[in-house]
C-alpha cells in the first residue's frame, strides 16, 4: 500500500476509534471481551462444523454465517439475560451469543441425544427455551409471525422482557414479514425486528430482489423506526439495537434494524457460488468483522495483542473440546420416536 493511502486508512481508523471511545469506556473490558469471545466462538464453531462436514461426519445440511458474526453478537449484546430471541436457519451465532452450551449445541449439530433438540432438530432448529433462545426455524420468514405472538404474550403478561426477532434479507420479501411488522406496530409490541442482511437470498441479490436502496426504509410503511447499519461493525450494531431495545422496553413499540453484512461461504452445501464474483467475496473478507473488532480493541487501548489472541485461542479450544466431547455422545433411539409429537 502506498504511504499516502496507508496514512489515509490510518486516519479513518483513528476517527473511528475516536468516535467509539465513549462507547468502549461505557461497555467496559468484560463486556467487550465477551463480545469478542462470542464472535470468535461462532467463527470457530462454523469452521469446525465445515471441517466435520467435509470429513463426512455430519449427516444433514448446515448454513454457515462466517463473516456475519457481528450481527447476532452485537444485537444480543444489547439484551439483558432475561430477554428473548427467535432466529433462523443461519443461526449458530445467535445461539452462541444467547449463551448456548457449545457442547450441547455441537451435539445437536451431530444429531446426538443429549443435543438441545435431542437430535430431532439439527443445525437449523437449535433452541434453548430456558436460556431465552426460542429457536431457529428453517422456512424463510416463518419465525417473524411467531415472534409477534411472543411479543404479544410479553405485553399481555406485563413482562419487562424484550424479544429480538432475527431473519435474513430474503425474508423481507415475504408477506409474513409485512403482516408481522404491521401487527407488531399497531399493538406497540416490545420487540425488535433484526435483518441479518447478507445481501443474498440463496443466489438472489438484494439489488435484484427489491427496488429500494435500504431494507430499513420498509419500516416507514409501518410507522416504526428503521435503521440500516454497518453490520460488520459489532459496536455499530450494538448501538442501533440498544436504542431499539430501549424503545421497546419503554413500551413505545418495535423497530427494524438492518445489519448489512456478507456471508463468505455459500448458501448451503449445494452452493457453487455462480452468482457472485471472487473479487466481491475477497472485498468483503477484507472487512472481516472479527479482525475489525480486534483492531478497535487494540487501538482503543482496551486490550493488548496478547489478550486479544488469548480470547481467540480460548474460543478455539472451547470449540475443539465441545466437538470432541459431542462426538462421543450417544445417538437417539428410534424407539418411542412418536413420543414428542404431542404434548401430554
Amino acid at each position, binding site marked *: 500500500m502506498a504511504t499516502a493511502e496507508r496514512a489515509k486508512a490510518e486516519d479513518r481508523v483513528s476517527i473511528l476509534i475516536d468516535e467509539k471511545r465513549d462507547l468502549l469506556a461505557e461497555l467496559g473490558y468484560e463486556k467487550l471481551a465477551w463480545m469478542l469471545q462470542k464472535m470468535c466462538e461462532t467463527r470457530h464453531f462454523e469452521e469446525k462444523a465445515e471441517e466435520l462436514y467435509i470429513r463426512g461426519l455430519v449427516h444433514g445440511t448446515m448454513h454457515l454465517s462466517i463473516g456475519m458474526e457481528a450481527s447476532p453478537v452485537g444485537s444480543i449484546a444489547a439484551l439483558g439475560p432475561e430477554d428473548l430471541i427467535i432466529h433462523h436457519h443461519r443461526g449458530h451465532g445467535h445461539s452462541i451469543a444467547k449463551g448456548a452450551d457449545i457442547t450441547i449445541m455441537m451435539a445437536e449439530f451431530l444429531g446426538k441425544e443429549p443435543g438441545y433438540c*435431542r437430535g430431532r432438530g439439527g443445525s437449523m432448529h437449535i433452541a434453548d427455551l430456558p436460556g431465552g433462545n426460542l*429457536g431457529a426455524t428453517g422456512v424463510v420468514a416463518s419465525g417473524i409471525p*411467531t415472534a409477534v405472538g411472543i411479543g404479544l404474550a410479553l405485553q399481555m*403478561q406485563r413482562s419487562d422482557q424484550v424479544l429480538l426477532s432475527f431473519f435474513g434479507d430474503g425474508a423481507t420479501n415475504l408477506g*409474513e414479514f409485512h403482516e408481522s411488522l404491521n401487527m407488531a406496530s399497531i399493538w406497540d409490541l416490545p420487540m425488535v425486528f433484526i435483518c441479518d442482511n447478507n445481501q443474498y437470498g440463496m443466489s438472489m441479490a438484494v439489488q435484484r430482489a427489491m427496488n429500494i436502496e435500504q431494507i430499513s426504509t420498509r419500516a416507514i410503511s409501518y410507522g416504526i423506526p428503521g435503521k440500516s447499519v454497518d453490520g460488520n461493525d459489532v459496536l455499530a450494531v450494538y448501538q442501533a439495537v440498544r436504542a431499539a431495545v430501549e424503545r421497546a422496553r419503554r413500551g413505545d413499540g418495535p423497530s427494524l434494524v438492518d445489519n448489512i453484512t456478507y456471508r463468505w461461504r455459500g448458501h448451503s452445501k449445494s452452493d457453487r457460488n455462480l452468482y457472485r464474483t471472487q473479487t466481491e467475496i475477497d472485498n468483503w473478507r477484507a472487512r472481516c468483522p472479527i479482525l475489525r473488532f480486534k483492531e478497535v480493541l487494540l487501538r482503543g487501548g482496551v486490550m493488548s495483542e496478547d489478550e486479544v489472541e488469548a480470547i481467540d485461542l480460548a474460543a478455539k479450544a472451547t470449540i475443539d473440546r465441545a466437538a470432541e466431547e459431542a462426538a462421543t455422545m450417544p445417538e437417539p433411539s428410534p424407539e418411542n420416536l412418536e413420543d*414428542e409429537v404431542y*404434548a401430554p
Partner: protein
Amino acid sequence: MSDNGGGTSAPREISYLEAVREALIQEMRRDPTVFILGEDVGVYGGAFGVTRGMLEEFGPERIRDTPISEAAIAGAATGAALMGMRPVMEIMFMDFLTISMNQLVNQAAKMRFMFGGKASIPLVCRAPAGSGTGAAAQHSQSLEAWFVHTPGIKVVAPSTPADVKGLLVASIRDNNPVIFMEHKLLYRMKGPVSEDLYTTPLAKADVKRKGRDLTIIAYSIMVPRALEAAEQLSTEGLEVEVVDPRTLNPLDTETIVRSVSKTGRVLIVHEAPVTGGVGAELAAVIADSEAFDYLDAPIRRLAGRNVPIPYNRTLEAAAVPQVGDIVAAARALALEGN
C-alpha cells in the same frame, strides 16, 4: 343417542353457536391466559356472531381485533401459545387457513418435536367450515384432511351443541394446536346443553344412534343428516348405528372398530371431497383392524364430489351428500353381500 348435555345441572336448549360462545366465556372467566384474536371479533362480534357481546365483558386486549392478516394471526397465536398463553384464534372462514398454513403446519405443529419435546403450543384455531350458504368455492371448504395429515396438530369437528361446548373447553385446555371445525349450517342447530363448565374428552367417539344392521361413520354436519337418514331407514326396518368420531386426529379407533364388528357393514360419510379425504383413512383403519373379519360387504364411502363448491343452490347441494343420498347409499349397502 347421547344427549347428556355434558354437566350435572339440567340442560337447556341453546344453539350450537351459543354453545361455542358459552364455552369461550366460561373458560375465559376461569383462566386468564385464554384470549381470542381474529378479524372482526370485537365490536362486530365475529363474522357469524360467535363473539357477540364478549368485548364488553373481557375488553379489547382479550377479545382482540386483528387486521386482515391470516399469517400473522396464526403466528401471533403460535408465539403466544409458546409463551404459556392459551390463544383461541378465529379464522373467518376455514378457506382462509391457506394463508395461515406456514404458521400452523411448519411452526405450531412442529416446534415441540423439532425442539426435542421441550415446547408446547396450546392454541385453538376455530374454523367455520362447509358449504350450504351459497358462498361458492372460496368460502365453503372443509379442509380437515390437510390437518389430519399433519403430525402435531389435533383436529376436532363437533356435531351437536353439547359436544361443541365440551370439546371446545377440552381443546382450549389441551396442550397442543387444535383445529376446531364449526360447520356454518350447524350454528343454528339447537340442543340440550348444561350451563355448567364441562369438558368432553378429545379422541373419544360418540355413538349418536344405536343400530344393529349397518354403521354410518359421520362427523360435523353429516351427523344430523345421517341421523335423519337413519330415522327414514328405520321405517323400512333397517336399524342404522351412527358413530361420530368427533375428533378426527387422534382417532378413537376402538369405538369405530367395535361398531363395525357388530354391524358388519359400514358407510363413511363426509362433506369434503372424497379423494384423499378423512374417509379414506377411516376405511383403511377399519380394513386394517379385526373388524375386517366381520365385514359382510365392502367398506363404502359417500363424500363430497371432487369439485370446488359451486354457487348455484342446486349445484351446491349436488356437490356434497344430502339426506337422500345417505338413505340411498345405506339402503344399497344393506343389500350388498346378501
